[in-house]
């Protein structure tokens, strides 16, 4: 009873906190000065059509580095907490249809992922989305192929190398130009081309590889109690 009362009080308190925002809300008519600066700078200084990308990679690049680090720590936590006992389990075989279809579909998904993170400055998408799509491709491989095993050593290698190069590019920016993670260390190119906007495609590709390998690691760790040797496939 007292429990329910507390819950209701909590909800009403939250409502009271939120209500002023709702009542006083009026749709803004102009961008704030900061956003205007970002939009202009993205066109003139960086030559990157996607303003969100230039905010994520350049203007707020340090934040993104922090976010990637948080993701890395979460992956570490998942791997640390889950102990993998190899229990013997019976598993259903995969349908033949999806086994055939997915063998081609997986490389299609990989092409899509690479498209998304290399075109991060031209179209919606970028490192985070591309990394997630690549992790989904690995997930389809795990779901459709019982014999498929991911080598954790390779994942760790890709993850640490891309993270290292990411920080290194930031430091090069500090030496050559005026700021950490400044993309002007490479030539800016023509507005709207694939290889333009300086180092933004390179940095976003590295973020994509890092996020993709981390998420693949999470999935593989959580699903890995279907242990490799002791799986008894149900043949029928």
């Amino acid at each position, binding site marked *: 009873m007292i429990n329910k009362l507390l819950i209701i009080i909590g909800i009403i308190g939250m409502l009271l906190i939120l209500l002023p925002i709702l009542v006083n809300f009026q749709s803004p008519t102009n961008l704030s000065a900061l956003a205007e600066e970002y939009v202009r700078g993205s066109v003139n200084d960086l030559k990157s059509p996607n303003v969100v990308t230039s905010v994520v990679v350049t203007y707020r690049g340090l934040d993104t580095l922090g976010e990637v680090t948080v993701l890395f720590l979460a992956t570490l936590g998942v791997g640390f907490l889950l102990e993998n006992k190899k229990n013997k389990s019976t598993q259903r075989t995969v349908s033949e249809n999806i086994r055939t279809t997915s063998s081609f579909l997986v490389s299609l998904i990989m092409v899509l992922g690479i498209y998304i993170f290399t075109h991060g400055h031209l179209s919606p998408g*970028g490192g985070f989305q591309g990394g997630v799509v690549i992790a989904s491709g690995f997930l389809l491989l795990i779901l459709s192929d019982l014999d498929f095993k991911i080598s954790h050593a390779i994942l760790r290698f890709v993850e640490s190398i891309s993270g290292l190069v990411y920080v290194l590019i930031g430091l090069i920016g500090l030496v050559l130009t005026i700021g950490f993670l400044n993309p002007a260390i490479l030539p800016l190119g023509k507005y709207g081309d694939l290889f333009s906007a300086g180092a933004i495609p390179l940095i976003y590709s590295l973020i994509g590889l890092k996020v993709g390998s981390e998420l693949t690691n999470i*999935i593989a760790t959580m*699903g890995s109690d279907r242990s490799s040797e002791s799986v008894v496939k149900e043949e029928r």
Partner: protein
Amino acid sequence: MNSLIIIGLGVIMIAAAIFTIYQKSIVSAIISAGVISLLASVIYLILGSPDVAMTEASIGSALTTVVFLYALNRMRKEKKDDK
């Protein structure tokens, strides 16, 4: 037209959220939570931020539900081992 779509989607999302709370079966609750994040990505698209829409579509529909399913699967297997 946009506000018509938003009101329709909003009703569906709120209904799915309430269903998530009061559903007894956990798998059904996970399915309707997946519906919420699927439709949220359409709303982000109407609000003019396709980057967020793409992130929500790829993460909400596949990876979040799969992570939930993997965790449930581990718990289900333990229960079977005890018996």
